[in-house]
């Protein structure tokens, strides 16, 4: 049984149109995924729907066989699904340490909390260095590491990261992708959304191409990278999606 099943999910924001028009995706434990596709395809929306920020208008989302539609974000987190959104999701006026502590908000055991934090400091040594610094004053790459480190605090089963390389210089982005590859070794299932499709697919096992709110194609990441058709259609220079108005 797959870890996470998304079946025919339809979703949209507020009273607006459907962004997701019937997505079916299956996430296997231990594999890493990258979702790519044109702007407006619904990639971020899919993550938000899974994470509990958006209630699906139709379809279901099941985790370990249990239907999770309409769960709140904190409930999804408690179930082991961690979401790292693309905009600044830090607490800018809190220190790195406080941000990480907030990452472990759901953990009541103080000793365990400290243990996890030490583990995060090991994985991201730069955070240990900057632990007393206000998160808002860190560089882009460092901030991204804080959000990743924060995700690790709950030892999630599934981490969903929206545009990890957004706004980062290529070299820093590479470092981030390194770290994300490292998540795999920790047994964490990773789902990325990446505008920089090539970099994203290089970092994962499996690729999913989304367009117009539904899955167009999926397959081994290498395969997608190698396929010239797909590259041209979806991964080439900014291809505007068919008119969405």
């Amino acid at each position, binding site marked *: 049984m797959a870890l996470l099943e998304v079946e025919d999910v339809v979703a949209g924001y507020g009273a607006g149109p459907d962004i997701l028009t019937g997505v079916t995706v299956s996430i296997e434990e231990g594999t890493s995924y990258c979702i790519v596709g044109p702007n407006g395809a619904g990639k971020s929306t899919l993550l938000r729907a899974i994470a509990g*920020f958006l209630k699906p208008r139709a379809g279901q989302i099941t985790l370990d066989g249990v239907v999770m539609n309409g769960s709140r974000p*904190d409930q999804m987190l*408690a179930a082991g699904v961690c*979401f790292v959104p693309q*905009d600044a*999701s830090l*607490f800018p006026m*809190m220190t790195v340490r406080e941000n990480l502590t*907030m990452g472990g*908000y759901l953990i009541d055991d103080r000793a365990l909390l400290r243990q996890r934090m030490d583990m995060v400091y090991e994985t991201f040594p730069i955070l240990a260095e900057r632990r007393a610094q206000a998160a808002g004053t860190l560089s882009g790459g460092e901030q991204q590491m804080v959000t990743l480190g924060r995700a690790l605090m709950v030892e999630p089963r599934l981490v969903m990261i929206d545009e990890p390389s957004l706004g980062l210089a290529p070299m820093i982005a590479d470092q981030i992708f390194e770290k994300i590859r490292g998540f795999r070794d920790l047994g964490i299932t990773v789902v990325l959304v990446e505008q920089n499709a090539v970099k994203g697919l290089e970092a994962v096992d499996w690729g999913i191409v989304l367009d117009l709110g539904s899955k167009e194609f999926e397959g081994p990441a290498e395969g997608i990278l190698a396929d010239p058709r797909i590259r041209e259609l979806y991964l080439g220079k900014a291809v505007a999606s068919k008119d969405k108005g």
Partner: protein
Amino acid sequence: MMEHWLQILVLGLLLGGVYAMMASGLTLLFGVMRVVNLAHAAFILIAAYITYALFENLTLDPMISLVVTMPLMFGLGVGLYLLLFPRLEESPRYVEMTVLLTFGLALIVEGLLTFTFTGIFRSVRPDYAATSLTIGDIFLPTSQLYASLISFALLILLWVVLRFTKTGTAIRATMQNRAAAQIVGVNVRWISALAFGLGMSLAGAAGSLLSFMFPFFPARHWQWIALLLALIVLGGMGSIKGAVIGALLLAVASAFVTDLVGPTWSPITFYLTLFVILLVRPQGLFGAKVRL
């Protein structure tokens, strides 16, 4: 001469302390839940009237009434929030809706208070309301002194709660980045309700304290809310630090203005200062730039 200025300064600070506590509650509500609570002063009045009733009927000292009004207002706050605000959350004009909603609440409270207590000026007159303490050449009205000390104590307590407790940290996190708080598992609706309760309990304390500092009547809350709103805009909406500093600064400034020019100019100082600040720095002293 020096003593005279010092006297004015002290009087200003004493008053400022109470204003600071009232303004902190109000700005907390905005910071956590983006709620502009136009009814804040009306709720302060509820507490004042409760204190009055307790004093008249049970001779309960108003400072002791805090033990009653604070938890009561806390509960009222949590209940009101859960009842009214989550429904508005989807609305795109959320902040304005909260203004109008709390405006309506203020009208309801004022009407009910007038109906129950009529428009007569009331005040609570414990023994210390008329006495004063003299330290050196500075005279401190006892009522203001007590009120101020309690206010500062409560502000420190607020700081401790926000800084060192898990719930307090969650509140601060929600203030800084609501979406991120949700992501780390904070139940923001519940935290918002708690923060509302917290802000209201501060209003409750303020009511009990104000009851013996100034005479009050139901329509009085408009003056106070206008003042408090000016204070939090001045300090930067959502910034508790700004509210405290703004309150102290303005209270001292208006004390000096009163001394130099006369009492009618005192409230004018507040509003004029507000307009000047709005011209120069619309986000207030400590506000974030265009965080609305």
